[in-house]
Each structure stands twice: as structure tokens, then as C-alpha cells.
């Protein structure tokens, strides 16, 4: 039988010192989600240069990619996206009732795998920058 209760304001970030790994996972999922939706709007805005012609599009993309700061931001975006994906898989598993007793461990695994993928991708993301 389902029950309802008033859980109050869920996102009380003032209690961060009391957060468990599950709460940190939840907060980081929100944080990375905000970045990704912000990026989606920015991404479509940049790609919209194609409406001014193929040459403008190519110049815009290659101009941005020639900037070191853009490459650094792309690595940041990769970290955000990979964590959101891995933690998202973890959340889907939890929704399905899989690994309920390993929620903390799977959060740490998400962080470690994110770090490994991002560090391994850095050479590719910094390729030919400024050349």
C-alpha cells in the first residue's frame, strides 16, 4: 500500500556536512544536469551558425576549437557528461532494485571510472590545439 508524507524541501544544501555518499551522488547528478542542459542550449546556438552558410559554420567551429580554453572546457564537459551517464546507469539500476545494498560503492566506482576516462581522453582533446 502506498503512503504519502510531507518530506519538506528536499534540496537543503545547508546540511551538506551531513550528506551520505548517496546524497552526494544526488547533488552531483543535479549539478552535472544543470551544466548539461545549459550546454545543450549553447551547443544549438553555436550550431545555428550553419543557418548563415556552410563557411560561417566551419569558421565558427574551427575558430572555437583553436582556443586552448575551449579545449579545457570540453574536457570539463566530458567529465560532467561521463559522470552523469555513469551515475545515471547507477540510478536506473537502483530504480530497478538492482544493487540496492551497494549504492555507496557504486557511487565511488562512478567517480573513479569518470576520472580514468577523462584522464585517458586528455591527449585526444588537446590534439593540435594552437597549431
Amino acid at each position, binding site marked *: 500500500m502506498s503512503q504519502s508524507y510531507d518530506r*519538506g524541501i528536499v534540496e537543503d544544501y545547508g546540511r551538506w556536512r551531513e550528506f551520505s555518499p548517496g546524497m552526494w551522488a544526488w547533488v552531483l547528478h543535479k549539478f552535472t*544536469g*544543470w551544466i548539461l542542459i545549459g550546454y545543450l542550449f549553447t551547443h544549438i546556438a553555436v550550431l545555428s551558425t*550553419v543557418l548563415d552558410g556552410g563557411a560561417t559554420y566551419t569558421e565558427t567551429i574551427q575558430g572555437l576549437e583553436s582556443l586552448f580554453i575551449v579545449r579545457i572546457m*570540453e574536457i570539463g564537459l566530458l567529465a560532467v557528461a561521463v559522470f552523469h*551517464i555513469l551515475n545515471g546507469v547507477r540510478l536506473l539500476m537502483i530504480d530497478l532494485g538492482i544493487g540496492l545494498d551497494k549504492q555507496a560503492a557504486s557511487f565511488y566506482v562512478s567517480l573513479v571510472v569518470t576520472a580514468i576516462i577523462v584522464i585517458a581522453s586528455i591527449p*585526444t582533446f588537446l*590534439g593540435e590545439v594552437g597549431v
Partner: protein
Amino acid sequence: MSTETYRSSFTRGSTLWLLQRVTAAFLIVVLAFHFFQLHFVNHAWEIDFAGTQARMSNLLYFTTMWLFLVTATFHGVNGVYNALINQGLSGRPHQVLKWVLIIAGAGLILQGTRVALVMAGIDLP
């Protein structure tokens, strides 16, 4: 809160809850593919209009990217909506937020669709 309001909120919430999970499952695969395709298979700094047009002229690729746009927009906008509801937003601000997000999401999908069509070499009317 009336029982009727509670029921309708519950029904709508359940559908959005399920759609958030269904789009998540799709996005896990397509976001990973997108990153891999445009950073590792093709390097981002080598992207030009000709290459983009070649990829987007493939109907399967075009369809996948358009579904990526629609599902990512829904998942992101609904995620923002849920986050702000969890912050305790209710009443008139809740209604304003809902419509701002719906309009922003619809605008993004419309603009993204125009971009996708031009990328595929289709002239806009």
C-alpha cells in the same frame, strides 16, 4: 489540496517520471556515441560543413541526432522542472516556471530541427 488535484498531479507525475527514465536509457547510449563520434572518430577541430553534411545526409544518423535533440531537451527541461519543484516551488511561480520551460524546450527543438535540416542540405521554406 483537493483529492481531484492530487489525483491529476499523481497521474501526470507518474508519466513524467517514466519518460525521464526512458529518455535516460536512450541518452546513455546516444550521448556516449555522440562524444565518441565527434571527438575520437572525427576530431572536433577537423569538423567542417562538408563532413557534417555527409553525416547528416544519412537518414539513420539524421534520425538518431534528431531524436537525441528531442529526448535531451525533454530530459534536461524536465530535470530542471523537477529540481525546482523539489526546492519547494508552488502556486503561481510553479505555473510560470512550467510554461517558461515548455516554451524554451519547444523553441530549442524548433531551432535544432531547422539546424539539422540545413545540415542535411535541405533548404528551409
